């Protein structure tokens, strides 16, 4: 099947596009010293509140891998009214989850508007005084073990963790949830110490999305006030410079069924002037070897794809080559050729227009659920940007020029690390 750009352009010209809707602004509310970033959407029936605590991976020392996740999971497992907090929230018509990133751990609470305040009070009780006793820690380790197993069965995420470990220094490069072995090394004293040192109100902030009501500010305040007062020294993420000769890492996994090659580039973070052009590069690279499709294919059936971790500065862009769909050496050679070509001459305008359009669409679809929207606002704030910064990215992609792509390809995409994730034994 061949594409016909001329006919395509004619048809597009016939189709008058709708004007884009104006992006709603995010309000900033003072919760007694803690800031809340509130973006209302009355068309949805739920409220989401996300508490960002500056207790992410980079707070872990060499002997604390997994502490950020274990402390967060311990909060969820802390008994409240006789049952673990997470279960108590479920039983009262809400949900509570957490995620660990390089700098922040974030707790996301979701419920109907009239229920969010009582549930926030419940969460605040556990957040204020987590139970670090052996029983609760064992339950937390068990929950994390299931999540770790899920990560380790996905070759793309295995490769990504290897690349993160190679690129980021110190705690920021360690496995986000720890490992089964590292979690066993962390006892009550370790986890309590981590909580005491880093769970501080002065470094925290809140995002609120969805249907907001009069009780939402008090709910946000309850969460923030649960944290002890204080701030910790600021810290930046450090990376190891990538070298001209790619570093190669290999692992063999029993629950991986096809070889994967994952290539890691340093990449601009949200707010970096190079970020929009890097998103265009991502679209181009992810399009390599794409067959004509009826429907959007799941990753297992795609030869090449990408994971852009832009919740950390500097960011990392990982491209994976699926050995079950394509000869990995052919895939890597093509990716290498493409990044070199992009750095050596400007893209043709038609090609750039095509990938700008795709990149803008992919960006629009990144944050659709309430928790994604809460994260998107928080990610901007965590980078020191305006809370609405993510809204501006689409327009910035439209302005990317051939020289932007060439510059970004030269600056960010010429050096990389390589992770090989191979099936163990006969490969299943």
């Amino acid at each position: 099947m061949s594409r016909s750009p001329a006919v395509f352009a004619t048809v597009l010209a016939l189709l008058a596009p709708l004007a884009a809707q104006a992006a709603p602004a995010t309000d900033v509310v003072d919760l007694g010293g803690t800031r809340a970033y509130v973006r209302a959407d009355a068309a949805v029936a739920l409220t989401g509140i996300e508490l960002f605590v500056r207790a992410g991976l980079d707070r872990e020392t060499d002997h604390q891998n997994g502490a950020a996740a274990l402390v967060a999971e311990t909060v969820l497992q802390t008994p409240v009214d006789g049952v673990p907090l997470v279960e108590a929230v479920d039983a009262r018509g809400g949900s509570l989850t957490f995620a660990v990133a390089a700098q922040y751990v974030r707790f996301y609470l979701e419920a109907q508007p009239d229920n969010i305040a009582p549930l926030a009070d419940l969460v605040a009780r556990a957040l204020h005084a987590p139970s670090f006793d052996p029983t609760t820690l064992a339950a937390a380790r068990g929950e994390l073990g299931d999540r770790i197993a899920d990560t380790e069965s996905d070759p793309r995420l295995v490769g990504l963790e290897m690349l993160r470990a190679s690129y980021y220094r110190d705690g920021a490069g360690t496995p986000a949830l720890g490992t089964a072995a590292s979690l066993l090394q962390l006892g009550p004293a370790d986890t309590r110490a981590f909580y005491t040192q880093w769970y501080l109100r002065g470094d925290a902030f809140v995002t609120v999305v969805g249907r907001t009501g009069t009780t939402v500010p008090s709910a946000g305040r309850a969460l923030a006030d649960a944290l002890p007062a204080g701030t910790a020294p600021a810290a930046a993420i450090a990376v190891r410079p990538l070298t001209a000769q790619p570093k190669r890492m290999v692992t063999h996994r029993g629950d991986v069924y096809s070889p994967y090659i994952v290539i890691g580039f340093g990449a601009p973070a949200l707010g970096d002037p190079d970020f929009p052009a890097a998103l265009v590069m991502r679209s181009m690279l992810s399009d390599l070897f794409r067959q004509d499709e009826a429907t959007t294919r799941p990753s297992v059936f795609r030869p090449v794809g990408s994971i852009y971790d832009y919740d950390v500065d500097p960011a990392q862009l990982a491209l994976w080559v699926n050995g079950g769909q394509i000869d990995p050496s052919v895939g890597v050679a093509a990716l290498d050729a493409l990044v070199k070509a992009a750095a050596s001459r400007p893209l043709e305008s038609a090609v750039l227009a095509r990938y700008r359009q795709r990149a803008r669409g992919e960006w629009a679809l990144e944050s659709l659920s309430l928790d994604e929207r809460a994260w998107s606002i928080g990610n901007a704030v965590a980078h020191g940007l305006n809370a609405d910064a993510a809204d501006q990215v689409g327009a910035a992609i439209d302005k990317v020029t051939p020289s932007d792509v060439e510059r970004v390809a030269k600056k960010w995409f010429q050096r990389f690390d390589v992770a090989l994730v191979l099936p163990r034994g006969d490969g299943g």
Partner: protein
Amino acid sequence: MRHAGFATRAALVAALLVSALAGGVRAQGTAPLPSGTLPSGVAYQLRPDPSQDAAAVALWYRAPAAGFAPAPVPGFSGLAADTVAASVGVTGTSLGQLVNGFGGVLSVAVYPDSVSITAVVPPDHAAAVVRAMTAAYFAPVVTEDGLAIGLRETGQDALVRSFDPSEAIEDALGPTLFASGPLHDRTIPTPGSFKGLGVAEVRAFAERAFRPSNAILVLTGAVDGGALTGVASRPGAAPGASEAPAPEIVRSTPAPSPVPVTGNATGIGLGWVGPPIADEESATALDFLADVLFAPRTGLVTKAVGDRKASVSGKFVTYHTAGVFLVTISGDDAAAMQPIVEKTIDRVTRPLAPAAFGAARSGFVYRLLGDMETPAEIADTYGWYAVEGDAAYAPAEGGTDGRYFALASGLTPQAVARAAARYLGHPPSTVTLVKAQAAETRS
């Protein structure tokens, strides 16, 4: 060449009709109603939310997954929908290529008696996708290249579903509950399902199933009602009627249990026939019961499983003629779990204590609302209930003030127990799914 010629002609006429219609609805100068039927016979549901960053454009059709012919072909509707999305007509761009070029996501979902095509795209491309999708399906172009892509992707999707214990078991339960009809005929194709099918057969299905008068167009998220002016039509055809629900015969006596079925996954399935969608109160009660029993963490069965090496899931699926309550048990301890699951289900034939009932309802309402956050999820809700014949009962309709949630609020422990006793208070149909290789070894 004959097929290609037809494809070009049909697409050209469809494109012309788009141009002719554009402005027709808009010229009336009134905002379109949230629901209605266009002159071409296309029913629509329009639920904009400008706060969203994307729009969902979905077409839903009542069409049996196994086709209209007497001999069922499991998954045929998915093959046809995929093929149309992949076929290139006169524009030179398939629907799949167009949505992909917009950075959007296009998906096809196959259900026993319906099929949906959903695109999620940035707001400024929503109108273009409405035009392209309706043109593609209302005057379907079916090419050899498109069929090859459709066969490839349908095969991939079938492979994924066959390895998912829940999907595979639920599919296998259909024939144990129904003597004939869409649920009996199954939705997951086998490797030989499409043998002998060509462009002509796929086109015949597409032209009958995907006609405008059988379509329900759902627009949600950041989409403007003006997009309706771009809806295509089928050339030269009067609107006609939508497809009638396919006849379905519930087994008067359960199939011999347990029915052994071979596949790529292993597990145990339990199935009961439930109320039709018209019995809204009972259907809501069974939705609630599924949540009471199988909700993550707090469900009665979920708690009964505890730390055992078993995964148990359950749901009630609302259909036009008869709903189904399906339970799947998989994992090393599946066999040991079956009596525990059945005993726990038997418990809900007696009324829950008021406090437990109130808490369970609160969780049920939250989880239902949580499934309707994104434009695609909301479109799915409207599409499903509209195609099953009761759009006003869609949980998304009216939010928590709508009919569905009013019924949920009105549930009582006694009414729920009565529904459980009536529909779940007898032995289920049972299947045991074993891996094909293991079955061969044993024999």
